[in-house]
């Protein structure tokens, strides 16, 4: 008998001894329409299991595919920069500074350049000479003080 079988399965089921296949049989039986009245209470349980099997995860998962930056290349770049620096550094230091070996010649050269500096310096100060005119003008304004004196007397 089918019903007998189901009851046996249910007992096994309660003890956790049913196989997955047997459980599938139970599920099929209880989701069908002709369930024996005295087993009616099992119906919602199996219905619930079936409904819950259908629930799905609908949210998106943001999978980031950004590749990790490779720090190896930073060291490679640093080495390259250092090499270039050394290369140009050594070539620049070879340049002559323009040192004179003969003291007389050096003295002459220094005198020449100092003379040149003083010449152009004088040229610069000569153009500032007209500032004296301003001073002269300012001294003539001194008579304004006299006016101030008289006004102070009045306001006393």
């Amino acid at each position, binding site marked *: 008998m089918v019903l007998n079988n189901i009851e046996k399965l249910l007992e096994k*089921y*309660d*003890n*956790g*001894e049913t196989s*997955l296949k047997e*459980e599938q049989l139970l599920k099929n039986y209880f989701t069908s329409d002709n369930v024996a009245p005295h087993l*009616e*209470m*099992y*119906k*919602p*349980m199996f*219905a*619930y*299991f079936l*409904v*819950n*099997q259908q*629930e*799905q*995860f609908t*949210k998106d*998962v*943001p*999978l*980031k*595919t950004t590749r990790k930056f490779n720090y190896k290349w930073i060291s490679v770049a640093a080495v390259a920069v250092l090499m270039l620096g050394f290369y140009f550094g050594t070539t620049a230091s070879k340049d002559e500074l323009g040192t004179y070996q003969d003291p007389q010649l050096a003295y002459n050269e220094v005198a020449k350049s100092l003379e040149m500096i003083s010449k152009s310096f004088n040229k610069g100060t000569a153009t500032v000479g007209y500032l004296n005119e301003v001073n002269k003008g300012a001294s003539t304004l001194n008579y304004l003080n006299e006016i101030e004196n008289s006004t102070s007397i009045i306001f006393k």
Partner: protein
Amino acid sequence: MTQTEFLNIVMPFKDKVFRVAKRLLISTEEAEDATQEILLKLWKNKKKMQEYKNIEAFSMTMTKNFCFDKLKSKQAQNLKIVHSNYEDGNTPLQKQVELNDSVNWVAKIIEELPEQQRLIVQLRDIEEYDLDEIAKMLEMNNTAVRVNLSRARKTIREKLTNTHNYGIK
């Protein structure tokens, strides 16, 4: 491993992860977050993933541990998760409403089970895993799983019988 390869591996069981997480955490939002977190963790460790024999079982163990951690921190915060995901049946048929109602009742009964039993019922009756697989996922032995499963099923049956006979809720 490319994104598509990863998705091909993960797609078949991502819903299972979600449902198991929901069974433990109860709220849908929490379960969604947990699932997302777990998938991201898997993605981050995708290089190690090929070493695992059974990625699905491994993910389930991860889910279990993650949810238990979550629950622990929740308890520490004294927060209670409120279940608000019941769908109200708009079907006009009296019978369907009744069935829907009793299905919700089953949900409530399962919710009241201890976490371990809840998890086992989920894995066995809903996800339909082998007992050995469940034992491996939960890091328990086979008999312990069976005992827990049997206890859970008996509790569910008892409560269901009571409500069925007396209509007490």
